[in-house]
């Protein structure tokens, strides 16, 4: 039988070909893209040789969108339309952020805030997508082909809403998200592989706007996260802000307009960077009303005004250490990640706490992207890194609202992913036929102190006396750390299921619409694209199933083999025709036909893996 293979450039299902995949560090201050070439991870540079793309987006006249250094130049002259540090707004409402000091015109929207710009009202997801598009183009130009997918990094302490928003931004930028990866875990991969490390490592990651701490056990290529903690609103930006406040206070300035605020913030950042390697600096600038600011700031003063920010990072550190059940002597090394860890006072406090000199031999700006690229390379199916496995955890507990506004935890923080857990609840009124389910995330006892992720209703519960119904609610968190929830009344089998895409996330349809709007593609293009995509996925599954049959035909009966082969033939025929929907249904059918086979293969591979280990006790 001739196997029809239609591949887009870079999307070939042929196993021998290197599939182009990248790791993207979507940072608060800077973003980077990296890829693995000939077994080594590299950060990709733009045409001028710059690797760091400032995470700044400028909406100019005549629909012109600029990203990076060019946009950064506009932040003083056009602050309303120049969005910096958009990551801080991902999955956040107005009440979550300190908006008073920021030069933007915020628009409150159910769920996530939006920003009014010259180009219209933009959500943080759309703004982030502009940054990602630039990195995607950079990678495709450098690698000379279309990308199979990308691993995007997120702070480990990002909650479900922030993760969902990041994934939406990537999809909006036209990227296939292979995985959301926690930044400290990515850093650990780059560091661990580079240094051949084994043992217990702490990753201290202070970025532009977020702080993460992760404790990992590195052993024979398995990176197991034992605990993670952090503060998703603490980073280098806050150090700039301290200097900014110090300037206002010392120079006795009244609150400023957007232009001056932006200017003083830029001066503050420059001062911070200078003080990383110098003992003093001069802050001088001319304000819009003609006032001239000229101040002297020493490293010691800077350390003093930021001491409690550094101290603030230690509380999450202690929590993570307790959750992992470890004491300071157990730790083999502390790896510093994120540009803000360049500040000597940060390194000092970490060294004092762990009684160890922190490891700073990898570029703290690049290490996350480098690690993400390694994971992307594996997930894209480029072999030779098979031994590496990441076992990550969920950073914040997930729970449900119960009577009295209390949050009942269903999945505890630091559970290894993937994880599923069910809990049973009951009705509290006679004849109650519906139940409202409120999913929350966080560690606090009261629902109002946790983040609300979603609300949905289970209807059609058969009327019973109070307490008689048994409603089983199952939480499933996948390897990306994203949650889905289903609820079922056990006696009647009434079921409700939602992927938790709260007011924060975008629905599949919204994404499609936004994509349509941005590509402005003609209907014909769209259906051609759909057909190509359907054929690619059909080719991929046929290839996978054939390879599986080749290897493990013996695990199933001859009849089962025949059924699967018939479905393969049917799908091949469908693939040659021009009906995308028919191809999709053929893929479904082939998937269905291989269920028993897949289970048998899984069991066999586990048996093989454990072979030699007390074989007599295994019943697989």
């Amino acid at each position, binding site marked *: 039988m001739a196997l029809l293979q239609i591949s887009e450039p870079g999307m070939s299902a042929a196993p021998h070909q290197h599939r182009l995949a990248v790791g993207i560090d979507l940072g608060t201050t800077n973003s980077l893209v990296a890829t693995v070439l000939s077994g080594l991870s590299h950060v990709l540079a733009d045409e001028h040789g710059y690797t760091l793309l400032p995470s700044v987006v400028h909406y100019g006249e005549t629909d012109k969108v600029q990203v990076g250094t060019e946009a950064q130049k506009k932040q003083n002259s056009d602050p309303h339309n120049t969005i910096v540090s958009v990551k801080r707004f991902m999955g956040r409402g107005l009440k979550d952020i300190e908006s008073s000091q920021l030069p933007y015109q915020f628009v409150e929207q159910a769920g996530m805030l939006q920003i009014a710009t010259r180009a219209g009202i933009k959500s943080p997801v759309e703004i982030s997508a502009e940054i990602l598009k630039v990195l995607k183009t950079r990678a495709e130009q450098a690698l000379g082909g279309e990308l199979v997918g990308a691993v995007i990094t997120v702070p480990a302490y990002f909650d479900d809403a922030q993760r969902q928003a990041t994934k939406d931004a990537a999809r909006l930028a036209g990227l296939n998200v292979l995985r959301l990866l926690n930044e400290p875990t990515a850093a650990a991969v780059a560091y661990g592989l580079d240094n051949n490390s084994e043992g217990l490592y702490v990753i201290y990651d202070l970025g532009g706007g977020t702080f993460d701490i992760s404790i990992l056990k590195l052993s024979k290529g398995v990176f197991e996260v034992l605990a993670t903690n952090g503060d998703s609103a603490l980073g280098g930006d806050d150090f700039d802000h301290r200097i900014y406040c110090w300037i206002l206070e010392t120079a006795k300035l009244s609150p400023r307009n957007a232009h001056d605020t932006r200017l003083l913030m830029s001066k503050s950042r420059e001062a911070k960077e200078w003080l990383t390697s110098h003992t003093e600096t001069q802050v001088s600038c001319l304000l819009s009303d003609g006032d001239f600011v000229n101040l002297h700031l020493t490293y010691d003063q800077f350390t003093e005004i930021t001491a409690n920010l550094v101290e603030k990072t230690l509380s999450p550190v202690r929590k993570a250490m307790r959750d992992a059940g470890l004491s300071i002597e157990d730790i083999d090394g502390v790896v510093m990640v994120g540009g803000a860890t360049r500040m000597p006072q940060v390194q000092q406090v970490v060294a004092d706490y762990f009684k160890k000199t922190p490891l700073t031999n990898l570029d703290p700006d690049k290490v996350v992207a480098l690690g993400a690229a390694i994971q992307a390379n594996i997930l894209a199916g480029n072999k030779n890194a098979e031994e590496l496995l990441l076992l990550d955890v969920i950073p914040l507990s997930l729970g449900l609202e119960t009577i009295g506004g209390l949050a009942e935890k269903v999945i505890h923080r630091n559970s290894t992913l993937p994880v599923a857990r069910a809990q049973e609840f009951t009705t509290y009124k006679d004849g109650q036929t519906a139940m409202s389910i409120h999913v929350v995330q966080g560690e606090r006892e009261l629902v109002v102190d946790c983040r609300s992720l979603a609300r949905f209703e289970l209807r059609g519960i058969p009327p019973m006396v109070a307490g008689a119904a048994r409603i089983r609610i199952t939480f499933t968190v996948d*390897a990306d750390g994203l949650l889905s929830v289903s609820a079922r009344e056990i006696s009647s089998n009434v079921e409700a299921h939602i992927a938790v895409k709260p007011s924060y996330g975008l629905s599949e349809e919204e994404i499609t619409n936004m994509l349509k709007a941005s590509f402005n593609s003609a209907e014909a293009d769209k259906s051609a694209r759909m057909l190509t995509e359907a054929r690619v996925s059909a080719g991929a599954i046929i290839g996978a199933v054939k390879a599986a049959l080749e290897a493990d035909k013996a695990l199933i009966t001859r009849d089962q083999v025949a059924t699967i082969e018939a479905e393969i033939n049917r799908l091949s025929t469908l693939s040659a025709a021009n009906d995308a929907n028919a191809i999709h249904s053929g893929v479904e059918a082939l998937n269905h036909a291989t269920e028993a086979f897949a289970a048998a293969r899984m069991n066999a591979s586990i048996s093989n893996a*454990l072979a030699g280990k007390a074989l007599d006790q295994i019943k697989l």
Partner: protein
Amino acid sequence: MTQNYFELFALAPTFNLDLVTLETNYRTIQSTSHPDRFVGATATEKLSSMQLATMANEAYQTLKNPAKRAKYLLELQNINSISETNTAMPADFLMQQMEWRENMEEAKSNKDIASLEQLHHQIQVEAKILQASLIDCLDIKKDYSSGTDVTRKLIFLDKVCDDINKIIEQLDS
């Protein structure tokens, strides 16, 4: 998949478990079954990978923790160690509990993290003694009735330790 957690890791169902082998086999199973290994696979294969990896995580967390392991061993004997009919506790144990809880509250109001950590350590020592007696009850004598009593005590101690950790966390934030 119908096998129990011990069978999954190719281990004999005993309380006195070889934790090194448990960890090694857990990692081996995850290396084989984790969804990351099935990114290019069919939807069906992805699903079984997700199910097995999820079960392996749950099984590992259960067997790694002594109180959960004991409770699970009893479940394999059809004994629910925390059922509501199983609540009677010896008076001296309850007295001890009250004393710990009082110390805990006192340290909490004094914001005394060091004392809380000390108390935590003291309870861990008690827990170790209970664990030793579980080897005797569950593995050697197969005395599940005594085993249930000891397991319940161990679960109580775990709960006190959890509460202490929560208080430390509150005081530390």
